[in-house]
């Protein structure tokens, strides 16, 4: 019985996080419900004119996705910190970088991927043209990965605080901005018939950079939080 390889350990962590999420369906449902509520409110606030709604739809959808992600990122490490699992994770012989990436991957699966998959439905409610649906889903898929990774940094730094919710927003919102700009620009481009490829490529580049660097910051943040 030796320690499992890093890959097997990470697969185990992802599975553990997913099982935990499935047993707490409210936590999976919350971002989706939030998304649905805000999308339903916009026609009431802006007026039901379809062309006007369609014009704002790319920005609206991306802002809601961003806020939904922001709301859920606080909880990534919270319960593990509260019950002592986080201490044990830090003592694991496997690299913390990989463990942090696994946690974020699981978080991305239950928030970002899920949102991206149902986003065409909500986009339809706002009258987004059909040809932009695929771009919307793709941009959300890439962008939410970046959001989860950045959110993880904030979560790791604030997990030791009793009320870190506000602080985490202040910490990570500035880093969310580029994702929002290029994400909504990609959808906007698709709406006007322009090529969305370059925007998606930039989102992909952001994701690559975040995958490379964010787990380092998350690992350091977790060590500091558990130490304090």
């Amino acid at each position, binding site marked *: *019985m030796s320690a499992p390889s890093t890959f097997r350990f990470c697969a*185990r962590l992802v599975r553990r996080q997913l099982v*935990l999420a499935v047993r707490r369906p409210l936590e999976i449902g919350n971002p989706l419900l939030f998304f649905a509520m805000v999308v339903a409110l916009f026609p009431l606030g802006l007026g039901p004119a379809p062309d006007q709604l369609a014009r704002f739809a790319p920005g609206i959808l991306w802002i809601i996705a961003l806020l939904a992600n922001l709301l859920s990122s606080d909880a990534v490490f919270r319960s593990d910190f509260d*019950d002592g699992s986080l201490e044990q*994770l*830090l*003592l*694991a*012989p496997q690299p913390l970088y990989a463990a942090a990436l696994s946690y974020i991957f699981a978080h991305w699966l239950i928030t970002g991927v899920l949102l991206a998959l149902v986003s065409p439905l909500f986009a339809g409610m706002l009258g987004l043209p059909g040809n932009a649906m695929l771009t919307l889903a793709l941009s959300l898929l890439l962008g939410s990965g970046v959001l989860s990774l950045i959110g993880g940094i904030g979560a790791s730094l604030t997990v030791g605080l009793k009320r870190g919710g506000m602080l985490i927003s202040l910490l990570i919102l500035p880093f969310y901005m580029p994702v929002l700009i290029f994400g909504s620009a990609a959808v906007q481009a698709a709406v006007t018939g322009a090529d969305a490829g370059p925007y998606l490529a930039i989102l992909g580049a952001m994701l690559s950079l975040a995958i490379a660097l964010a787990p380092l910051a998350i690992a350091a943040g977790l060590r500091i939080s558990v130490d304090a």
Partner: protein
Amino acid sequence: MSSATAGETLLAAQSLSLERGGRQLFEDLSFAVRAGQLIQIDGANGAGKTSLLRILAGLSRYGFEGNITRQSSLLYLGHQAGVKQLLTPRENLAWHAAGEGEYANADIEQALAHVGLTGYEDVSSHTLSAGQHRRVNLARLYLSNSPLWLLDEPFAAIDQKGVAELERLMVKHVSAGGAVIITSHQSLQVSYPLSHLSLSAGLQ
């Protein structure tokens, strides 16, 4: 249970000093933990036992002076049970965040049987009591193959029979070439030479 040969140094601490809230908890504390040693850390509440254990485990990395050399893998059991309410005891052990090993189902059942949780393997942990949570955590000791155990108040919320069982397990572990550092306010009833680590006077 472990591969360490007797007498081998598993962990060495050199001139550890820690100050918390303007109080010097310990100063210039040096000791070596060898295979076969059963060490109890002495001290009143707030003396710095837990802080020392966390430093030894590597959870506290800042705010203290001195060096720690770790020569072996270790198992640390802290105040918190590290048991997920939404997972069953079996899942808690199989997918434990400590990443110490991969255990067969039979091993897990045996470990849970040792801590008296037969029949509770597959019930959700939130139906278990605080003491049973601690027992799930203690089951890790039966599965562990780390030579060095750092146990912070392992007897808390454990009944007398469980304490005796745990003491037997620790003696078995150190006899097989492991080492145990334990903080406890109870005096250990063990038939094994017990070393005492005093935060002011060092290892005795």
